């Protein structure tokens, strides 16, 4: 095996990077791939809680880099998926504890063992971000259909171009189809037009994402969730499958309206 290293980045914070990493990891692993995710946000560790693994941490990425433990010892196995692992960030250190070459070395050690290495980049375009993109074969930029998120995503894409990271993809997260229909939110096409990179996925806004992160069980495991379906589709596209993009306009059909009137979950 030679793993593909995929870094999830965004520029702006709070657009859903960590949620994306957790969900893609779960979707890939549920589909039979061996996956390691690395939390690159040193000092602000979060991927562990989103994945529900916070109580199992003994060693972290800085322990591995500084030689206090073996790589294996810092890999926490998921509760349900036996081929899914997390290497947590250190919480009490800062981003300067790791260098881009440390990250590259660590990923090279992991590459023969797994199919995918997913790195959760911190927000911003400084050291932590540089660390996260250093080993990447592919960088997925997450954005929301909103002015500040799109502007920051464009900065990240510009830096990736300058770094000659050619394999970039765009994930538009938290798209609200009702607002788009009212012309009060940028559409996926608007965002694509502005950023000019390849689209990998569109994830609709979904309350289920908050509920699932409350429980530490990523929404990709919920067969009924639309956001979960969107993440599963992205995972398939990462594997090279040709999956059509979801149609969001169609969900506002008669059945959805009946469900809403009956107090069911919102679209």
């Amino acid at each position, binding site marked *: 095996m030679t793993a593909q290293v995929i870094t999830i980045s965004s520029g702006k914070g709070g657009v859903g990077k960590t949620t994306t990493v957790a969900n893609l990891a779960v979707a890939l692993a549920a589909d039979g791939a061996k996956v390691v995710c690395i939390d690159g946000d040193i000092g602000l560790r979060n991927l562990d809680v989103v994945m529900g693994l916070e109580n199992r941490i003994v060693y972290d990425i800085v322990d591995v880099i500084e030689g206090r433990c073996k790589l294996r010892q810092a890999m926490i196995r998921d509760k349900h998926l036996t081929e899914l692992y997390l290497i947590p960030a250190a919480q009490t250190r800062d981003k300067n504890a790791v260098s881009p070459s440390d990250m590259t070395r660590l990923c090279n050690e992991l590459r023969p063992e797994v199919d995918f290495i997913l790195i959760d980049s911190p927000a911003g375009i400084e050291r932590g971000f540089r660390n996260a993109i250093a080993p990447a074969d592919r960088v997925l930029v997450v954005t929301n259909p909103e002015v500040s998120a799109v502007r920051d995503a464009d900065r990240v894409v*510009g830096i990736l171009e300058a770094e000659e990271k050619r394999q970039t993809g765009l994930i538009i997260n938290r798209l609200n189809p009702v607002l788009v229909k009212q*012309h*009060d*939110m*940028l559409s996926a096409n608007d965002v694509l037009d*502005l950023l000019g990179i390849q689209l990998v996925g569109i994830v609709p806004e979904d309350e289920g994402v908050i509920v699932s992160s409350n429980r530490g069980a990523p929404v990709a495991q919920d067969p009924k969730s639309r956001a979960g379906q969107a993440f599963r589709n992205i995972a398939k596209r990462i594997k090279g499958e040709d999956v059509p993009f979801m149609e969001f306009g169609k969900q506002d059909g008669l059945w959805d309206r009946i469900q809403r009137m009956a107090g069911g979950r919102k679209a």
Partner: protein
Amino acid sequence: MMKWFGRKPSAESAKERLQLVLIHDRTALTPAEMTALKDELLAVISRHVEIDPDAVQIQLEHDGRTQRLLADIPLRSVSRRRAG
């Protein structure tokens, strides 16, 4: 749906504003520098040919991830210059 009294839909404003902001971010040109660039460009060109400064249009446009400077500089016709 939110076209209150003919106001532009907010998504359209967002896109237009972003288009401008991104072009300036990508080229690292401030609007002031852009004005200076235009003035200098016109000065150079008018040393060689006669132009109509009010009809000149110089702007940055983007096509995917490439930016280009588009200049539309109408020249004053030679015959008119001679006649005058």
